[in-house]
C-alpha cells in the first residue's frame, strides 16, 4: 500500500523538486494563498465593496446604493460622528475619540508589555527548580476567554464589590469609581491588555532564545562578556527577528482591542476603533462598519509600515 502510494506520488515530487527556485516558492505558498483567497480575500473584497455603498436602514437589504468614498469622507470629516457612539477623531475630547484612545492604548501597552515580556522570557529561560510550572502559570492569563478577562477586571475595579478600589483611590492612583472615568478606564484597559499579552510576547521570545546556539554564549563568555553584554550583543540581535514579529502582532492585536473593553469598562467609556465597527455593524450600518474597518486597517498598515522601515534601518546599521 505504502509502496503504491509512493509510486504514485513520487513522480509528482520529482517534478516539484526540479522546479526552479521561483516556481518552487510559488508552489509552496500557493496552498495558503488559495485558502486565504477564499476565506480572507474574497470576504475582504466584498467588505470593501460594502464600504463603497450607502447604508440602507429601511430597505430589504442593509446595503444601499453605490456612493463611492462618501462613507470614508463622512467618517474622516467627522460628519458621521453623530451616528457613531463616540467620535472617530476629535481633538476636543481625546478620551472619547476612538482613534486617539486606540493609539494611546496600543502605544503604552506595546511599550510596557514588550519590555515586561522580554524580562519574563529571560527569567523563565534560566534553569531553576519548578521552571516548567512557573512557565505554565505565567502563560495562563492569556488563555482565559476574553469575556472572562474583562469580567475579572470589571469586578476588580467595581468599588462596591472589590476591596482594592478604595486603597487605590486613597493612594491617588485611581478615582473612586475608575470604571466610569474614561481616563482611569483607559488605564485599566491598558493594564488588562498588558497583563494578557505579556505571556504571548514572552512565549515568542522564549522560543527565540531557545533557538540560539549555546556555543555562542561559550564564545562570548570566554571573550569576557558580562551577562549584560551577552544579552546585548548576542541574545538581543539573535532574537531581533522574533521580537519584531511578536511586536507586530502585539501591536495589531492592540489596535483591534474590543472584547476586553466591552467586558470591562464598556465601549462608551473607552471607545476603540473596533468598538465603532461592532456598534455600527449591530445597527446594520454595514457600509459604515465596513468603511471603519478599512480605515482601521489602513491605520494599522501605516503603523506596521513604520515598524518595518525602522526594523530595516536597525538591521542595516
Amino acid at each position, binding site marked *: 500500500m505504502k509502496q503504491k502510494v509512493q509510486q504514485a506520488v513520487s513522480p509528482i515530487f520529482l517534478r*516539484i523538486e526540479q522546479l526552479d527556485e*521561483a516556481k*518552487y*516558492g*510559488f*508552489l*509552496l505558498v500557493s*496552498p*495558503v494563498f488559495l*485558502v486565504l483567497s477564499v*476565506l480572507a480575500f*474574497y*470576504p*475582504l473584497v*466584498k*467588505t470593501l465593496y*460594502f464600504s463603497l455603498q450607502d447604508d440602507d436602514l429601511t430597505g430589504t437589504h442593509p446595503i444601499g446604493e453605490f456612493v463611492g468614498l462618501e462613507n470614508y469622507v463622512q467618517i474622516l470629516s467627522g460628519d458621521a460622528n453623530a451616528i457613531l457612539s463616540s467620535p472617530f477623531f476629535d481633538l476636543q475630547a481625546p478620551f472619547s475619540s476612538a482613534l486617539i484612545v486606540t493609539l494611546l492604548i496600543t502605544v503604552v501597552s506595546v511599550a510596557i508589555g514588550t519590555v515586561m515580556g522580554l*524580562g519574563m522570557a529571560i*527569567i*523563565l529561560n*534560566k534553569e*531553576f527548580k519548578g521552571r516548567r510550572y*512557573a*512557565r*505554565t*502559570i505565567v*502563560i495562563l*492569563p492569556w*488563555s*482565559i*476567554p*476574553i*469575556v*472572562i478577562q474583562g469580567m*475579572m*477586571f470589571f*469586578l476588580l475595579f467595581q468599588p462596591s*464589590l472589590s*476591596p482594592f478600589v478604595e486603597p487605590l483611590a486613597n493612594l491617588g492612583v485611581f478615582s473612586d469609581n475608575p470604571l466610569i472615568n474614561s481616563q482611569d478606564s483607559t488605564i485599566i484597559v491598558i493594564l488588562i491588555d498588558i*497583563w494578557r499579552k*505579556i*505571556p504571548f510576547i514572552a*512565549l*515568542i521570545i*522564549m*522560543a*527565540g532564545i*531557545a*533557538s540560539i*546556539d*549555546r*556555543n555562542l554564549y561559550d564564545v562570548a563568555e570566554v571573550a569576557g562578556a558580562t551577562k549584560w553584554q551577552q544579552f546585548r550583543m548576542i541574545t538581543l540581535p539573535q532574537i531581533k*527577528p522574533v521580537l519584531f*514579529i511578536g511586536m507586530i502582532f502585539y501591536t495589531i492585536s492592540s489596535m483591534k482591542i474590543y472584547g476586553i473593553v466591552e467586558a470591562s469598562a464598556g465601549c462608551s467609556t473607552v471607545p476603540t476603533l473596533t468598538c465603532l*465597527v461592532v456598534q455600527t*455593524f449591530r445597527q446594520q450600518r454595514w457600509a459604515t462598519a465596513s468603511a471603519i*474597518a478599512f480605515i*482601521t*486597517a489602513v491605520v494599522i*498598515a501605516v503603523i506596521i509600515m513604520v515598524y518595518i522601515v525602522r526594523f530595516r534601518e536597525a538591521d542595516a546599521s
Partner: protein
Amino acid sequence: MSEQEYSGLTGRIVQYTIQNSADVYRLGFWVGLVSFIMITLFPFYWLLVLAVTPDNQLYQMGVVPENFNIGVFATVVQEYPLHHYIFNSILIATITVIVCITLGSLAGYAFGRVDFPGKGPLLVLLLIISYFPGIAFLIPLFELLTGSLSILGTPTPDLYNTPWGMVFPFTMLSLPITIFILTTFYSQIPDGLEDAARVEGTTRLGALFRVIMPLSAPGVVTAAIIVFIGVYREFFFSFIMTDGSPENWAVLVYGILNFQQQHTQMYNMMAAASLIGIIPIAVLVIIAQEHIVRGLTAGGLKE
C-alpha cells in the same frame, strides 16, 4: 579603586553590588520571577475568590473570601456539560493547529528559505489580513460557510453547526501569525543541515519535515500554542457558527456564558467554569513547553 570612594550607604550598596554581582544578579532574578508570578497569579486568585464566594455575597467582598462555596465547581461540572464544551474546544483547536502548522510550514519554508520574486509583497498581503477586525469578514464568510452562497450554480457546503464552520475562519485568522513565526524560525536553521539532508536523498520538502521542523521545535511549538490558545478562547466566530448546543460543537465560552442570565450574571459559576476551562491549556503548556527549553542546533554544525 580606593576604599574611600565607596562611603555612605549608597557607596556601600554600590560596592556590594560590584563585589557580589553574582548575588545581586541572583536576587534580581528571584525578585523578578516572584513578581511575575504574582502579577500573573493575582487575577487568578481573584477569579478563585469570585468562584467560591456565593452568588449573593459579592458585596464588599474581602481579599480573602469569607464564605467558601467549593460546591460551585461540582455544580458547574455536574449540572452543565462543561466537559462536552471543553472537548469541542479542544478538538476544534487541535484541527486548526494541524491545518495551520501544515499549510504554514510550507509557506514558512518558502518565505524563509526559498528565494522567489514577490516574496515581500506576498508577506505583506498575508499580514494585511490581520489588520482587520474579525467582524469585517463576517458577512461574506458566513454566507460562504453556511451554504448561502452559490458559486457557478452550486451552493457552498453548509458548515453551520460543524467544527469546520469554526476551523475555517480560525485557520484564516491564525495563518498570518503562524506563517510569520514559522518563517522566522525556519530561516534561522543553518543551510548546512538542510544540505546534509538533501544530499542524503530527501527532497526539499522532506528536509523541511525531517530536519528543519524538528530543529525549529521551539518556534513550531510556540506557533502551535499561540494558535491553540487563540482558538480555544475565541468566541466571536464560534458564537455565530453554531447554535450553542454542545452536540453541535458549541465551544467552551458557550459553556461559561450559560451562567449569564438576562439581567444578571452568576459570577461565581462563570469564574468556576473559567478556572476549569483553563486546565486543558495548563496541561498542554506543561507538556509543550519542554520543547521550548533549548534549541537543538548546538553541536550539530561546525561553522
